[in-house]
């Protein structure tokens, strides 16, 4: 099976690289943290290098020549932070004199300076230094090029041979079929070489003008030879069919294996991979990239093998007929080869452009069809057509350019390959005339040449196939080799029964490592409590619950469930015990029943209906013409918003998690539906530890405790009554909401 990725950084090693200063003997001048900033603020902000060193006593900055430019005593420092800029960030220290900018840097090193800032603050406060300081490789050890991913692998150094072997390994399970294809190709080549031989025989022995035969003499011979031709024809056609039979089998199955491997790897990837890329880019790996590898394996490789065999066979046969002629006639081969390669490079660039134009065309098409409501609502049909027209024209133009080049190329190739025939006639004719060669041999030679030159034109295309397959393979193997989520760690704790106690201890997290969204969250939740998370948008509510599901891992601090660090829990077990009702419920294209039973496949009809009843969904479902067998459409489009919410609640109820995450929808529905949703929600949260990102007053009132988040920190905790009395942050939030939202009837 595929080779493992080289040099994956061990998670444990990174923990060991935490810098500490519990060494009593750390001298004052010893540099504890050192990093190079890649921007220079003098001379108009340009690329450069500034080394920032942090010791126990001071923070200093040196330029490229080691000259110290700035030195700030740690004792004067109050805070240190990285101020984000556009296209970079700046390390700033707040001292008694104000803000001192220390260094500027691009996004490439921003995360490290963020850690440095934390370290500086720790030292300034007299705390022991405790930061994550992993030395990552930014350049390839072998070729010194920048690595696309730090500590990752260098695409330039990957041996094509290794990738090729890996691609070919997919043929492994089908060795028998591949062998058959190989053998039939060989036999087929031989069979097709037989035809010219019979031509020679007929011309030299039967139809020879020098030794004419009568019909009675010649016919049997002719029949014999034509019979031979017929056999060879039948054989080569038959072999072709057999080969095709197995090639089809191989191609279908190899593609299937590749796609399956990519998809299953894809599913197990961490969410960060999906966050960084668009859906289209990801799905294209499963479809287009596997297609390219498939194309190479199924068309490229057989072609290469066939063409090579033909060339060899022809050369051998040709030498047998007349070595001089063969040499002469094959002389243009290298010329043709070189010309083909020369023509091919610009050709492939043009094809690449066509592919890109298709991509842009498709994107626009998809978008405008999906958003057709908006197009109509804003009366932008003309505008959209103008955009469409532009992309359509670009596509057509690039297609025209590519096709024209292609015909020029084909014509050119035809011209050059024709030379072989011309040479053969001239030189061959001469040889026949001087008696060195028979006419029959000449005819045979002509036939042979034709069989060689034909496929030769496409020789350059093999390189193209190869490159594209390599590129496709790289992208696929990138997915397959990516570190998956820690699903099957053997030492993981399986919690057969979960109580539902959740603890956040000093949790810190940022999607962008240099900009934490959650800073120091401490919360202790007992099983069965309902916690309402409140705060302005961007305060960190959704992020908090994402960490609980372990969609992302905290940068610092510990998240515990039932006293166990969630990193030590088996991921499957953790997620099985956690249920989510998101803001916009995502329903799969299937029946209502299938969607409700998604978390518990194999649920009985009774179980599904019980859950639906509890979610106040049973009534509207049964009233539909197809009842529980109703198709919900893509993304649940055939149901209304309120119906989708209740189906999602039913889904969560059936899943029966111990910990529930409820992200309340903000869109308002009619009074009756609202009442039903509130009732359904109340039933859902009963007896479960619930984290509700709450918007409804009723939810807030029913919560055991409300946690008010602001800019990533918990600012207030208490019951609804307590916080209203306090007239603090929560009170202000409620005031604002009441002023701006419409009145919704509330079940008190």
């Amino acid at each position, binding site marked *: 099976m595929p080779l493992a990725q080289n040099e994956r950084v061990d998670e444990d090693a990174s923990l060991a690289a935490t810098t500490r200063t519990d060494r009593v003997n750390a001298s004052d001048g010893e540099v504890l943290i050192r990093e190079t900033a890649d921007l220079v603020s003098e001379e108009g*902000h340009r*690329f450069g290098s500034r080394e920032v060193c942090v010791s126990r006593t001071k923070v200093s900055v040196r330029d490229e020549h080691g000259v110290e430019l700035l030195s700030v005593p740690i004792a004067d420092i109050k805070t240190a932070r990285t101020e984000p*800029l556009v296209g970079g960030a700046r390390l700033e220290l707040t001292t008694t004199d104000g*803000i001192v900018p220390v260094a500027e840097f691009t996004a490439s090193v921003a995360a490290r300076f963020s850690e440095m800032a934390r370290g500086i603050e720790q030292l300034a406060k007299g705390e022991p230094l405790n930061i994550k300081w992993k030395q990552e490789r930014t350049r390839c050890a072998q070729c010194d090029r920048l690595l696309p991913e730090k500590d990752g692998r260098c*695409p*330039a150094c990957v041996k094509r041979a290794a990738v090729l072997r890996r691609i070919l390994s997919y043929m492994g399970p089908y060795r028998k079929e591949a062998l058959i294809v190989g053998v039939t190709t060989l036999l087929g080549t031989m069979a097709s070489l037989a035809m010219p031989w019979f031509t020679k025989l007929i011309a030299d022995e039967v139809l020879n003008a020098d030794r004419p035969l009568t019909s009675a003499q010649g016919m049997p011979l002719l029949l014999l030879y034509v019979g031979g031709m017929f056999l060879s024809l039948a054989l080569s056609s038959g072999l072709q069919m057999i080969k095709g039979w197995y090639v089809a089998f191989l191609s279908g199955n190899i593609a299937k294996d590749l796609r399956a491997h990519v998809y299953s790897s894809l599913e197990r990837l961490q969410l960060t991979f999906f966050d960084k890329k*668009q859906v289209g880019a990801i799905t294209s790996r499963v479809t287009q990239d596997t297609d390219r590898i498939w194309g190479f394996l199924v068309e490229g490789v057989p072609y290469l093998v066939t063409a090579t065999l033909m060339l060899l066979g022809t050369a051998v046969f040709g030498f047998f007929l007349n070595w001089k002629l063969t040499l002469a006639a094959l002389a243009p081969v290298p010329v043709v080869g070189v010309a083909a390669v020369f023509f091919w490079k610009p050709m492939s660039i043009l094809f690449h452009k066509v592919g*890109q134009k298709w991509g842009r065309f498709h994107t626009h098409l998809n978008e405008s069809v999906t958003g057709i409501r908006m197009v109509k609502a804003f009366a932008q049909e003309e505008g959209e057509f103008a955009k469409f027209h532009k992309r359509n024209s670009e596509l057509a133009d690039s297609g025209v350019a590519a096709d024209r080049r292609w015909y020029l190329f084909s014509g050119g190739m035809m011209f050059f390959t024709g030379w072989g025939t011309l040479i053969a006639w001239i030189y061959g004719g001469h040889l026949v005339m001087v008696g060195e060669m028979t006419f029959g041999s000449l005819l045979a030679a002509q036939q042979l040449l034709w069989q060689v030159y034909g496929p030769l034109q496409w020789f350059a295309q093999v390189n193209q196939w190869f490159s594209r397959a390599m590129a496709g393979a790289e992208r696929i193997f990138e997915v397959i080799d990516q570190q998956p989520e820690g699903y099957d760690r053997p030492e993981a704790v399986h919690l057969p029964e979960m109580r539902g106690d959740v603890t956040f201890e000093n949790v810190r997290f940022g999607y962008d490592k240099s900009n934490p969204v959650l800073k120091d969250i401490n919360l202790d939740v007992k099983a069965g409590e309902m916690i309402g998370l409140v705060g302005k948008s961007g305060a960190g509510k959704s992020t908090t619950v994402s960490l609980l599901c372990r969609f992302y891992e905290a940068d610092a601090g510990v998240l515990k469930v039932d006293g166990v660090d969630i990193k030590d829990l088996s991921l499957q077990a953790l997620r099985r015990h956690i249920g989510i009702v998101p803001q916009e419920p995502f329903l799969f294209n299937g029946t209502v029943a299938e969607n409700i039973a998604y978390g518990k496949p194999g649920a009985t009809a009774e179980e599904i209906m019980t859950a639906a009843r509890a979610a106040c969904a049973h009534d509207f479902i049964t009233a539909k013409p197809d009842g529980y067998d109703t198709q919900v459409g893509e993304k649940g489009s055939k149901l209304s918003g309120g119906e989708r919410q209740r189906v999602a609640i039913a889904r969560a109820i059936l899943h029966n998690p111990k910990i529930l995450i409820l992200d309340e929808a903000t869109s308002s529905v009619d009074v009756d539906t609202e009442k039903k949703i509130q009732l359904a929600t109340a039933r859902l949260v009963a007896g479960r530890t619930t984290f509700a990102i709450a918007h409804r007053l009723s939810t807030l009132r029913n919560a055991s405790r409300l946690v008010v988040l602001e800019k990533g920190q918990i600012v207030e905790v208490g019951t609804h009554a307590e916080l209203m009395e306090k007239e603090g942050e929560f009170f202000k939030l409620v005031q604002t909401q009441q002023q701006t939202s419409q009145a919704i009837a509330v079940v008190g």
Partner: protein
Amino acid sequence: MELQPIAPASIRLFYEPQGTLRLTVADDRSYPVVKLYQAWPLSMPGRYLSFQDAKGDEITLIESAAELTAEAREVAEEELKRRYFTARVEAVVDIRTEFGVSYWRVRTDKGERDFVVQSLSESCIWLGEHHILIVDVDGNRFEIADRMALDTASRERLDCVL
């Protein structure tokens, strides 16, 4: 939260204390912590500058720095240079593509730089027919304001990959 009209000429802009931008409207009011943003940094750089207070509310919007007094303009331009760092590509020295990853070496108005782009078709933002923003693997941005204005060699190298 309405925009109070402030005459640009009456704006005093300075750093006080060190490193903190402060805005004072002559004889009226002073904002101790101000942030300066460009509303259209890519399509109209230098135009429509927005001053925001510490809470993120806009204090005023001026059409361009030219409207300010000479000293305020100097400070504004310095602040803009601090906040906005996008390198503008002047020449493409080399592009090498290997397995879908492209390695670039460019000369920009901020100096020479090497960078890596993971998949060009996804990391290229088209702001216009010839105006491109290339985003490298770390998220750094490199702007090609007009690719037709580049020298021939650079243009050819660019055409090969775009």
